[in-house]
């Protein structure tokens, strides 16, 4: 065998290995997420509840996100209403259905999908940083030394709190988006409040679909961020990386979940 062919033979498996490494890591990552989700759901019914832990997490996740989310969604509602009105005026100088279509869109999708993104930055980053810093300072190992399962002790209360309070915050922030849109519609385009607040196009199915998305997105944010936190390594730099990965992973999951839930909604809850 010549030197050149030996090099080719030697570099083959490592090149393939390098190519497959991200795929393999991605598959392991997703498998890890589902394992953590399964374990969390099991421990919700079987785990040992720490007194007050759930309420504390509900306060941290809900209360502390509310103002940020309301302001963010307020601006988003105002921007979308303004742009929708400008665009629709080019086609038809009639804005009587501006509020009705915006509210339907918001209830069915946008309150959940647009709201979940900033929520991921606030809640997801918080969960990943908190659990990640506990990992790198050996606090998670100290929990295990005391027979406290880190998933039961750290993940379960955050998962429940994020799902319940995240959904509640998204509903409230969605309402703020409607109100800010109404103010813009009235102030800029002279659409009166009564005309704007038109819920006639919103069906129970739309509400169900919107709330399903909110619950799914909030649960995804919690579980992905917790998993990123638990897999932290390498000191404070590792915590930073885990936080970034939590936000990126949560945002990606929101988009993918939205695609599939919207697809199911198209068939089962027609618009």
């Amino acid at each position: 065998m010549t030197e050149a062919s030996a090099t080719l033979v030697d570099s083959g498996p490592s090149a393939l290995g390098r190519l497959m490494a991200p795929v393999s890591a991605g598959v392991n990552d997703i498998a890890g997420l589902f394992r953590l989700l399964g374990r969390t759901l099991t421990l919700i019914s079987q785990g040992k509840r720490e007194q007050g832990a759930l309420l504390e997490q509900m306060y941290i996740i809900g209360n502390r996100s509310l103002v940020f989310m309301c302001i963010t969604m307020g601006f988003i509602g105002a921007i979308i209403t303004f742009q929708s009105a400008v665009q629709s005026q080019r086609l038809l100088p009639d804005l009587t259905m501006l509020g009705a279509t915006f509210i339907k869109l918001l209830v069915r999708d946008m309150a959940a999908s647009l709201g979940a993104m900033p929520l991921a930055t606030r809640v997801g980053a918080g969960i990943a940083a908190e659990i990640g810093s506990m990992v790198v300072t050996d606090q998670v190992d100290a929990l295990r030394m005391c027979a406290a399962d880190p998933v039961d002790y750290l993940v379960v209360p955050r998962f429940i709190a994020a799902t319940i309070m995240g959904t509640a915050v998204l509903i409230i922030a969605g309402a703020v988006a409607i109100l800010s849109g109404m103010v813009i519609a009235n102030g800029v385009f002279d659409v009166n409040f009564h005309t704007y607040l038109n819920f006639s196009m919103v069906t129970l199915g739309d509400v169900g679909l919107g709330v399903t998305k909110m619950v799914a997105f909030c649960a995804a944010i919690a579980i992905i961020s917790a998993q990123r936190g638990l897999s932290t390594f390498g000191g404070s730099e590792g915590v930073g990386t885990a936080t970034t990965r939590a936000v990126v992973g949560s945002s990606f999951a929101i988009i993918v979940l939205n695609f599939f839930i919207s697809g199911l909604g198209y068939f089962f809850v027609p618009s």
Partner: protein
Amino acid sequence: MIRVQDLSVSFRSPVLDGVNLHAPPASILALVGPGASGKSVLLKSVAGLLRPDRGDVFVDGVSLADKDEPGLAEVRKGIGMLFQNYALFDYLTVGENVAFPLRRLFDLPEEEIQARVSERLERVSLPGFEDRIPRSLSGGQKKRVGIARATVARAPILLYDDPTAGLDPVTSQKIYDLIKGEQREQRGCVVMISSDVAGVLTIADRVAMLHRGKLVFEGSADEAKTSVDPLVRQFIHGLVEGPL
């Protein structure tokens, strides 16, 4: 009491390579060695916090290799551990930190928990510190709270990861006296990592030295002091010239 058998652990590269070690009951084993020699990894493996690639750890004759997490949790009930950077729960008070193992491991009445917490804090010279929060404490105080938490469940095996790191000589000696006193009372097995070789040799019954993931010495404290092995000699006596 603790037997480590052919233990190998690797992360991206090998950290421990075929380590065999024995820590008898009622003794203090000092685990020494240069930085990044695998001491903390060995201690965590003994506690069942890390899964080895090869080999096994036996705690009181019980193999950790075939235990799942609930099984390991059972074994860990007999082990108290002080972590290198204290690992105090920063969202709990000092009293709640010390009480944590009692609340999780045993079903004790609250009065007994409080009594044992007060007794432990008094023992580590921190009486009345129950309501303080960890971040308001000095490094030495945090170490002592960590020792109180590690010993509150009266576990027969205690693992200390560098209990005197970063402490002044007086505080270090106080901590050594505390560890020795506790071990004499409990007749327990202590495995202690220390970078303060001179200090730890004053209380250790046996010494094990790791270098690049391998056990290079195991013997009594006197044997460690008089060893002619160039690695051991240089490290124990802190010599500049040598193979390290």
